[in-house]
């Protein structure tokens, strides 16, 4: 727990259990996880492959449903929402960045970024394109705006995905290994973007394999065998 926060946590997990039904023996990927994340935190989730990081972040974003336990995000009981309500809520509250970009292949980069605003009707029509271009500018992709994703490099696609995650200006960004497919220089740039977002009081939850990056987040959670086994707080960096 982070005792210095007196306000309500943005993300609150209680006794969260996820069991995968694999056909043969059921597999417990999360074993009664408890976690509170507060507004403006930059949380890194680390752990071995197969430890349950993706499973955990999918619970927070409502991309997958827990077997039992509670997920409350921004006061919303995510575990209790239906698929439909979940999508609407997610669109406005959580920007999701996937490990494998997941851009829509038949839409240009710009259109991919416009899509969340379209779905959630968040900005007036005429502000959307300037806003999307601004976001692309920030991820240094303005010149690629009118290309189809398949013609971009992995790093470019990931930056486009981040721009898309920010489209509705959500308070929380959940990213699953956003730098996993990027070279160190690009990874650094992406990480820098996340740091700037944190400065704007966004809450970032990021899964990463990169120990160097993990060392730079304010709060690092170590996941092993479906449990949070260790937590490190780097107050000095964040405050610096």
């Amino acid at each position: 727990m982070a005792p210095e926060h007196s306000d309500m946590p943005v993300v609150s997990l209680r006794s969260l259990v996820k069991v995968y039904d694999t056909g043969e023996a059921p597999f417990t990927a999360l074993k009664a996880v408890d976690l509170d994340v507060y507004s403006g935190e930059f949380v890194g989730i680390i752990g071995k492959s197969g430890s349950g990081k993706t499973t955990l972040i999918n619970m927070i974003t409502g991309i997958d449903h827990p077997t039992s336990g509670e997920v409350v995000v921004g006061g919303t009981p995510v575990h209790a929402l239906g698929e439909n309500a979940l999508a609407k809520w997610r669109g406005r509250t959580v920007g999701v960045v996937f490990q494998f970009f997941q851009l829509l292949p038949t839409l240009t980069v710009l259109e991919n970024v416009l899509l969340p605003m379209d779905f959630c009707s968040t900005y007036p029509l005429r502000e959307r394109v300037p806003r999307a271009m601004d976001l692309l500018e920030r991820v240094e992709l303005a010149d690629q705006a009118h290309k189809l994703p398949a013609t971009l490099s992995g790093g470019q696609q990931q930056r486009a995905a981040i721009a898309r995650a920010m489209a509705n200006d959500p308070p929380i960004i959940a990213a699953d290994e956003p730098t996993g497919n990027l070279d160190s220089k690009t990874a650094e740039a992406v990480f820098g973007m996340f740091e700037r977002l944190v400065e704007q009081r966004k809450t970032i939850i990021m899964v990463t394999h990169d120990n160097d990056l993990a060392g730079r987040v304010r709060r690092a959670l170590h996941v092993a065998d479906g449990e949070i086994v260790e937590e490190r707080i780097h107050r000095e960096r964040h405050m610096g």
Partner: protein
Amino acid sequence: MSPRWRKVVRDLSLHWFRTVLVVLSIVIGIFAVGVMLGGREILLREFDADHAASIPANVTYRTDDFGDDLVARAGDEPWVSAAQARRSATFRYRRDGADEKRTITLEAFREFDDISVAKVVPAGKDGWPPANGEVVLESSALQVTGYAVGDVLSVERADGEIVELTVAGFAHDINSMPAQFAGYETGYVSFETMTSLGESDSYNRLSLTLADEGISWAAASRFAIDLRERLFEPEGLRVYHTEVPEPGSHFLGDIFSALSLLLVALGGLSLGLSAFLVINTVSSLMAQQVRQVGIMKSIGGSARQLEWLYVVMVGIYGVLAVAIGLPATAAGTRWFTDFAAEILNFRVASYTTPAWVVVVEVAVGLAVPLLAAAVPIRRGTRMSVVTALNATGVGGKHFGHTVVDRALGMIRGLPRPVALSLRNTFLRKGRLALTLSTLVLASGVVMAVWSVQASIERTISDLETWWNYDAEVDFAVPLDAASVEAAVEDVDGVAASETWPVFGATVVHADGSENESFVIVGLDPDTDFVGPTLVEGRWLTGEGPDGIVINTDARDSEPSFSVGSTVTLRVLGQERSWPIVGVVRGQMGGPAIYCDAGLMAEAAGIPGVTRLLVRGEDSDAESEQALLTDVEERLSEAGLQASATRTRADLAGQLREWLGILVAFLVLMAALIATVGVIGLTGTMSINVMESTREIGVMRATGAQHGAIYRIYVTEGATVGAIAWFFGALASYPLSTTLVRALEGAIGMPLTYAFSWSGVFTWLALMLAISSAASLAPAFRASRVSVRDAIAYE
């Protein structure tokens, strides 16, 4: 346009190959259903319209010569709304220098442009009305031989002299038996020409329409008898035949009901087939989109929004398909209607498809795809994002691995690519189930149609066993049997001969009505000139007080005919009751009654024989014609004038023409349904392979050669094709027996069922060829894309 709608447009245009496939499979569905159901509606409607417009006769008398005064008196009868007289006479003729003699019925009208009953409509201005020395042919003559304006017909007068008539044009007469079924042509000439042919300048046919349009057959018959007595008998005129057809009926009625039945049955099957095809395509499309649905939901797309997105997308496919399908179907229906009109000899005034058929077409194009998409759309938009993101296609993963791998593992020495492709095939279980259902249905229907066709062919050859002789000759007047037989006895090639009295027979009903549709044939019960196939009861025995045997045509044209019943027949003016002892298969040559010639003589006092049958040495069409020519020659030398002649080949040919109509339509429908099947197969295979584009990329990345990839997908395609063929062949048996039984009901004739093994194997070959080819094309496409693109393929 907002990005999500842009996605719809982009999905349609960037994946144009898929769009084309989906639209094409919907279009072919619309087409098959539309042409069958629409074609049927138009066919029946236009035939009825053309028939009604001709003002068909309610009563027709064939009589001794009469004049205009009698026509006027008939017209003044209060029950009669119109009376039309004509002269009709039958001649033998040769066309331009041909050896073979044919028969033609010539009809003369006083006013060609004012025919009030059973109208004849000129095909063009050419040669109408026919001038002296000219003949206008009924257009069905074109179905028999290619007559052209300017052809010369050498017509033989009763006294043996030849009169040359020039073909001046063509006309349409829906009430005359089309030449290909009748075995003779019909032509129209002026009275001047008629007299030059040795006929008198008076009428011998009177056709009437009755004022009461809803009159029953029995009432019309009683009226016809009453009028006959009042009109002709006081003048001393004999009436040879009084024809009272069932009001509104037509001699092609049986064929029409059979056709109509086939079209409805196959139209219904095509509807089911199209639905399967569309469901198959659309659901595979949706399966491909599941992952994108997951992505869109993860960035805030609500189920409602996504549902709309896909409803619109599928709707666009539907709209495109309807836009192409409706005009294509209209054109196809038009072609089909023309095809039908030509062989059935009627004219089409309007090709307008009835609204309900258009509604069905639109439903197939729009409603079926949307309904088909509803389930996958709902499932896709309701499933959790993580499931959607991990989705690979239709079907569960659980079924696969273990079962299939174990099964495939048991087949030793299976080449790797083959094993892999078989695994692919079975892994996409849901996909496979849909594909197979579509293909099994298509195959089943195609092979069933083949079997129906085979059954008709078999029936034709069965019916041909009736004719155990090579040629027959009809005489207009009864002749002495001994002198006829003596005349042909020593003609070269005549192996045996027999003579029959054949006369008109009238069934007299208790209510006073009469049915004159029959001929009664007197023969030796032990004759081996015909080989009757019994349908019911027994054949003539020649012993004791024997009864009569009727053919199936007779049974169908007289409700009171059944084995065991006794009917009153009038033959040559003499009435007598006869028990019906049996029913034999007719050869579609009309209603006939058979009885012992001896008994017939006792009952009616036979004045002589009217038909000669000869058997020759060879039974090919040419020898028979040669034999017949010699026989006719010899008869005419002996002063015995033939009124009509037919070889066995001619008779069998007419039978083939009748049933051939059904065969022609069946072939057409089989082709149409096979096309639906082929396009469905191609589409399904293409979609299967497209779904595997990513796999292909991975295989190529791991070093698979083009050839190996082809082999995998071609094997997969062929396997699916072979499985569908097998079950389709099984399904075709009950389908075809049902169709054949229904057809029997429609044409009122028993058919011999034959399962078409050749159809089954032809379809196997087609199926294997098509399914591998259909897999090859997309596999080729896939193998051309770069590994990177293939892996990135969504």
